[in-house]
Structure formats: structure tokens, C-alpha cells
């Protein structure tokens, strides 16, 4: 009989579940009474980072609000795979309006709750990176600026995946998409473009901004819970690998998300009222190649002198993040 040894060292780590801990220290997801905001049977791809991130985020939000939650969804994968008429995965009140207006619809829901004297009911707006940083950005900025009582969560898979992998304002440099193809003298997405939505959110001086990835699911749950402790506009930017768009193995979603953190390409931090208050240390720093090589969208970078040069530039971006957010210093300090 095969014996599965219990790895006690996982206790207190970032690993999921922690069923060995006291109930109050366990993850939301390990709770048998979790909300199951998104129930199984939806039509997301295998290894979908967005489905995983949304499930954790919304269940955590449901716990934080004692079940008094309304979700507003932008058009995108999350909307499409969860609600093909007449089926729905949502076990919470949920509305989808348009691609570009989720933050404004969420504002409307929040305004209605205020008018109706229901401060206990909280509102989450959510969308992909296209719906958030591109087409929905005016509404998002308006919602931030008015400090409406909405937690907006962006599930960032770095391109328009629902429409078949086209470049967005969150697509990183050099990445191949179907509108930044890996052809020509400078294949893939160009350098010097794109926007950093969390930093722009911080510039609005809203109460809470944080980033997370699906590699740090306990951290994601914590940040949702923390966000719900504030009133006003809050922004959570979650990196969610997309096996389809990134050309990665379905089983590597978590691994790739972790490598995005560990390389420094995706800094994980929180900010309150416009100031960074904490960042998640890189536990084991790895060069960017380790991250890039698992993804077909960067395949054109390997084996050419040009590609080597690009990798150097990407490494410089990672190094800048590490310095900027103190991703190694924090570790030394803690």
C-alpha cells in the first residue's frame, strides 16, 4: 500500500488548504462551508488562471462580507465561460452589462445600496485586463476618483484572450499575440508601451491597491479580506496565466504565476492611500528565462542574438521592479 507522507513543513506556508491548522487559520477555500461563488461545471479552459483567481477572490469576499455581496462583471472570458444561457456558475447576485462599463455599473449598484440603506451589501466589479486597463479605463478612473465603495478586481492575463489572443495595454514587451505576431525585425509586442494599472490606481490615492497572483492564493484571500476592511474605491490586480494565450501547459499555471513573482517581473505588493505599505519578498530569485521558456508566446526569444538581447532587457525590467518595490530587501529585513 502506497503511503503519502504528510509534509508538515507546509504549515504556515503559502500552500493551499492547510487543513492541519486550526479552523480560524485555514484558508477560505479549505472551509467546507465556503460560498462556492463560482460553482463547478463552467466552461473555462483547463488550467485557467482567471477561473481559479475569481473563485478564490469571490469566496474570500463572500466571507469578508458575511455573504452580502453583489458582483458586476465586464464582458470577457470570465463572463462567457460562466454564464452561457440558461446556465450560470454564479451562486451570488451577478450582473454583466458591457465590456467597458463594469466599474460604472458597480458604482450604480453601490449607489442603489446607499439609497436603500444597505451599507452591509458590498460590491465587487471584475474584468480582464482588456476590460480594465483599456476599454473600461475611463469608467475605472471615474470610479476611483469619486472613491465609490467598490472593490474592483482585474484578472490580468496580459491580452484579449476571449477574442482570440490580441494585444492589450497590459501585454508585456516581446510577448507574441495575434496582433503583435512574432515576425519582422522586432517580433512580438514592442517595448515602451503599456500601462501599469496598479500604479495608476495608486495615483488616485484610493484607500487600497494591491497586486496578487494565483501562485499566492492565501495572499489573494488575505488581500480581498483586507480590501473589504476599507470603504471607498479599492483595486486588486491579479496575475492569472492563460494556457491558451501564453502557450503554456495547463498544469503549469501556478508554476508560471510563481515564476512571474520570483523573477520580479510581477511585483506583489499592497498600497494604502497612495503609498506602498508592503511587498511580498522573492523567496528564491530566478532569472527571467525560467519564466519565459515555459511560454510559447516568448518562444521567438530563444536561439537568436536578437532574442538574447530582448531577454536582457526583460531582465532589466525585472531588476527594476525588484529595486523599486524592495522585493529582495524586504526579505532581508523580515
Amino acid at each position: 500500500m502506497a503511503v503519502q507522507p504528510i509534509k508538515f513543513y507546509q504549515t504556515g506556508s503559502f500552500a493551499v488548504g492547510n487543513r492541519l491548522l486550526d479552523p480560524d487559520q485555514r484558508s477560505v477555500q479549505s472551509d467546507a462551508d465556503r460560498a462556492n461563488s463560482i460553482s463547478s461545471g463552467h466552461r473555462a479552459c483547463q488550467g485557467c488562471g482567471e477561473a481559479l483567481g475569481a473563485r478564490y477572490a469571490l469566496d474570500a469576499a463572500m466571507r469578508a462580507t458575511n455573504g452580502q455581496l453583489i458582483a458586476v462583471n465586464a464582458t470577457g472570458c470570465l463572463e462567457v465561460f460562466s454564464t452561457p444561457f440558461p446556465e450560470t456558475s454564479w451562486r451570488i447576485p451577478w450582473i454583466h452589462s458591457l465590456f467597458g462599463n463594469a466599474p460604472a455599473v458597480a458604482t450604480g449598484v453601490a449607489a442603489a445600496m446607499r439609497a436603500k440603506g444597505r451599507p452591509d451589501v458590498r460590491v465587487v466589479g471584475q474584468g480582464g485586463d482588456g476590460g480594465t486597463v483599456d476599454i473600461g479605463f475611463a469608467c475605472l478612473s471615474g470610479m476611483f476618483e469619486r472613491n465609490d465603495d467598490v472593490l474592483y478586481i482585474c484578472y490580468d492575463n496580459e491580452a484579449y484572450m476571449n477574442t482570440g489572443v490580441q494585444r492589450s495595454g497590459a501585454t508585456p514587451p516581446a510577448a507574441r499575440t495575434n496582433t503583435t505576431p512574432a515576425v519582422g525585425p522586432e517580433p512580438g509586442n514592442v517595448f515602451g508601451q503599456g500601462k501599469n494599472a496598479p500604479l495608476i490606481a495608486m495615483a488616485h490615492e484610493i484607500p487600497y491597491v494591491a497586486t496578487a497572483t494565483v501562485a499566492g492564493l492565501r495572499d489573494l484571500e488575505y488581500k480581498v479580506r483586507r480590501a473589504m476592511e476599507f470603504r471607498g474605491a479599492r483595486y486588486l490586480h491579479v496575475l492569472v496565466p492563460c494556457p491558451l494565450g501564453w502557450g503554456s501547459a495547463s498544469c503549469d499555471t501556478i508554476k508560471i504565476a510563481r515564476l512571474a513573482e520570483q523573477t520580479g517581473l510581477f511585483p506583489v505588493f499592497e498600497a494604502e492611500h497612495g503609498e506602498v505599505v508592503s511587498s511580498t519578498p522573492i523567496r528564491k530569485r530566478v532569472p527571467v528565462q525560467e519564466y519565459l521558456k515555459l511560454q510559447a508566446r516568448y518562444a521567438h526569444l530563444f536561439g537568436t542574438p536578437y532574442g538574447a538581447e530582448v531577454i536582457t532587457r526583460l531582465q532589466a525590467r525585472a531588476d527594476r521592479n525588484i529595486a523599486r518595490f524592495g522585493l529582495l530587501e524586504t526579505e532581508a529585513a523580515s
Partner: protein
Amino acid sequence: MFEVRFHGRGGQGTVTAAELLSAAAFIEGMHAQAFPSFGSERTGAPVMSFCRIDDAPIRSREPVIRPDVLVIQDPTLLHQVNVFEGAEADCRLLINSGRPAADLNIGEFTGGLRPGSVLTVPATELAMQHLGRPVPSAALLGGFAALTGLVRLESVVAAIEARFASRPDVAAGNAGAARAAFDYVTDELAGLGITPPVPSAHHDGGRVIRASQDGARVVQIEGSAGVAEAVARCRPEVICAYPISPQTHIVEALSRQVKSGQLTPCEFVNVESEFAAMSVAIGASAAGARSYTATASQGLLYMTEPLYNASGLGLPIVMTVANRAIGAPINIWNDHSDAMSQRDCGWIQLYAETNQEAMDLHIQAYRVAEEVSLPVMVCMDGFILTHAHERLELPGASQVDAFLPPFEPRQILDPSDPVSIGAMVGPEAFTEVRFLAHARQLQALELIPQVAAEFAAHFGRDSGGLVRGYRTEDAETIVVALGSVLGTIKDTIDELRDGGMKIGVLGITSFRPFPLDAVRAALSGCQRVVVLEKALAVGIGGIVSENVRMALSGVDLHGYTVIAGLGGRAITRDSLRRLFQVAAKDELEPLTFLDLDTVLVGRELARVAANRQSGPAAENMLRDLGVVASRIG
């Protein structure tokens, strides 16, 4: 009917003067209509405003073309702007000047007037003495009262005091200037040997003063203010707005009500675009809150996507559209291009003929919207209605409460009963979803007249419904139109009827759903139909016409389309009279542009023919015209 035209400069209170005169006439018990010459004027630019006063309700909404009195607030305009346009022999002039009329060098313009009909009053000096500011409008109104005897000085003073109720010093200063000017003009008239006219003891235009505890009253206010009052009485819970002329006064008034706590519970959200305005309304309505917004023109286009979404989700949002043209070239004035462009977005569209109807339609709109679960646009002509001051009956809060029950949505976002709203629907059911949207509009076709009838029983006023005919019974020619131009058409029809022409007009109130049967029933007995519309389907012609012709399928009659009033071009009784006379002889082209400047168009066409790169047509033509805003009518 007594008609007054004010000429002044931006900052001189020219628009306020017309409004105050209308308020004074209202205090006298008369009907009055005041409205500005709408524009993008800034301080110092020439401005016009108009006031009509009558014992009966006033229907025409053309600018004052043949004034009984011209009030010139700034004598420097006399030789710059054709202020004398339409001044016929019995017109009288009141000019703000410290010099006698004979010294003003205007003999060439005033030679045709009766002796003693041009008076000057040093209104700016009087304003400086009494108010300490060079705003001559109140003084001129005092002079006007002395000159015409149409309103008493006390009524002018009362109007001033009501207008500046929150600033007693301004009220007192203006009232002092008005009194001084009244005395000055009285003396001037005596000096000319003219007996000052004595105001009739009491006009009675059938004024009914109804004031009650819950705010029901008759007032002389701007259309936008009236609509804001009506909306507030509907107890909206979420109002969101993005500013665009000419809708702004409505949401400004509502924001005051919300911020001051008069309208509560209600959230007022200042959004960053019209796209967001409609989106906030969608979220609020889906969460069970009665929602309101207002827009116009480019703003309506900018919210096109959420408009379709709101109707597709069946959310009973009510929105005012202060109808305005669509650019380019940018144009802030009235026509119906904006609402007509959204005729197929699934919203109910109701068009108001008067400000009273605009108010009433909002109250009815919530009833209809919430009963059939569809959003409603209440369309009111920008500036012509939104900025016109006239007598309005404000309903009482309890009266509206009794007519409009609280919003009980069919489905809401509620944590205790979670639902998914806005799911994807594929080809297997999308046709059926659309069919049902159509079926709901047809249901509204039944409901709109019922609600209008109930409204009439409850409030004692006829407003709304599907269509409304005027003198159509034995008419050989029937005009079809929407909105505020109906009043001007009715006055024209009365004139033509007096001359023996068998003509009537059919006003369409509900453009969506389109009342095919009612239109067919109203029109099928006549010989010709003239559809007068304020929008153009470029490349084919009329939009309303297409719909009317569908109603008349198989009926043999002459049909004409007249495009009128585009981008604020005044639709005058003179033009309408000529138009209908030509139409009655069946000499009208199938598609006519009312008052088209064919010379101007011809020149540009010639330029284009001569040189393919003739430049932007609009700029070329304006260069030809020379003067911007040079027309009165």
C-alpha cells in the same frame, strides 16, 4: 398677443429681462413665454431674448419676428446688429441711453415708426445708482411697464423680488432702478404729450392658484426646472449625470435637491461620461433603485452601447433627452437627430409638445417603464423647451405618489436571492429574445394611452398618449410632426383654416412604440400628408416619413417630407404658411428642406464643381454668410 424682443450683450441680463417680464405678466394673471436666442454667447457678445404675453395659452415657439416692443439694452448694438428687423409701424422702442432718441442717429431705421414711439431711458445710470452694477435689465422693465401699461410696476417689482429672493440687496437695488425708470418714462411720455397707459385693473387669463402642503402649485419657471420638479416628485433613488447642453439645467436643479436634502433618499453621481451615466443607471436599476439621467446630442450617441444594454436587460430607467443636433459641424441647437438616431435601441420614446407635457410625461414614463419593464426616453426640444419660461402646474408629492407606486422590480441583484443578470444568449434563443422585446413595446402601445387617461383623471390634464390630432376631422391636408413645433403649426393651421383651407395636424407623442394603427386611422381620410421632421436620414430623406408611410401602406394619398428646423433653424409661421399653401396645391417636392438657402448651397456646389479641393463646406458657407448668428427667423 403681445411680443417683445430684447437685444443686449452677454452679462447685461438680457435673458433675465425676458424671464422677469414673463414672471411679471404671470403675476398679472396672464400667460407668458420667455426664451433666449440660444447660443454659445460669452460676456459682451450680442444676445437676444424674447417674451410673448397673452390672455390665452401661447402655442407658437418661433422667435419674435414682428415685435410690439423692442428693448435695446445696449445702444452700441444699434449700428452693429440689425435690431430693427421686423419692426413695423406700430412697434415701439425702448433704448437704454442717456441721450434723447433724436441723438442716436437711427432715423433711417425708425423713420417708419409712429412719432413718439422711440424712447430712451438711462437704465445703466439708474442701475449704477440703485444697484451699484451696470446691469440695466430691471430698469428697462420698469420703463417697459410705464411705456406699455401691459404689466404694473408692482408686478415687475414682485418678479424681481421673487427672482432675487436669496439676495435681498440685489432685489432691492433692481427694484429701485425699475421704479426710477418707471418714473422717468412716465415723465418722458408726459413731455411728449402722451397719456401714460393705465394697466387694466386685473387681467384674468384663467389663472388658477393651487397651492397645497405637498408642493402642488402653479408657477412661471423654466422648462428644465419644471422637469426637475417632476422627476423629483417621482422619487428617484439614483440620479447620474454628465453635463451637456441643453440638458444641464435639469440635472443642476436635481443636484441641488439632493445635496440640500430635499430629495432623499437619493444618490446623485457625477460621472465621467454619458457612457458611464447610463452604466451607473443600469447598475442602480438592476439593484432595484428607481434611476434617472438626462442627456442630449453627442452624449446620447456616446451612450449608445449602454442604451441597447438597458433595454435588453429590461431596466425601467427614465431619461430626458434635451433634443439637439449632432455634429460635425458641432451645433448646440435643437433638432431631433439625436433621439431619432436611437429610435431602434429598444427604448420607448415619447416627445413632448410643451413644457407642461414634458413634466407630465416623466411621471407617466415611470409608470409605463416599470409596468412593461422597458426604459423610456422623454424627448423635449433643447432650448426651445428646456430654456423657455412659462406657466407650469407642479403636481403635489402625494398626488404623484398616488399615481406612481414605488418601484417593485421583477428581478434584482439581491444577496438573499442571487440571480445572474446579463447572461450570454446564442442563436438558439436570440430571435425569441428580440421578439419578446418587440412584444413588450407592443404591450406599451396598449399601456401608454391607458396611463395617459389615468393621468388625465388624476391630474386633470391631457398629456401624453400615442398621437393627438388637431382639426383633422375634415382635413384634406394633414401635417404630421413631433415635439414643440406642433404649437407653431397649430397657430398656422388656425390662420389657414380662417382662410378656408381644410388642414389639420397630427402630433405623434409616442414614436417608439410607433402607433401604426392610430396614425393610419388619423390619416387615411385625407388627401395628402406633409411630414415635417427635425431630422434627416442622409441619403434617403425622412425618418418619421418612413414610419408614417408604413402606417399608410396601401392607402392612396400624396405624401411629402419636409425637413425643418435642423440645428436650431427657426421654424416660423410665415414659412409654414407658405409651405402648407404650396402643399395644398400638390406642388411640393417629395422631399423639401424648409427655408433652404439655395443661393448659399448653389455657390458651394459650384465651388466643388470647379475645384475638387474646395475645402470644408461648412466653413466655406459661413464665410459666404459673413456674420455668425445673423438670422432672427
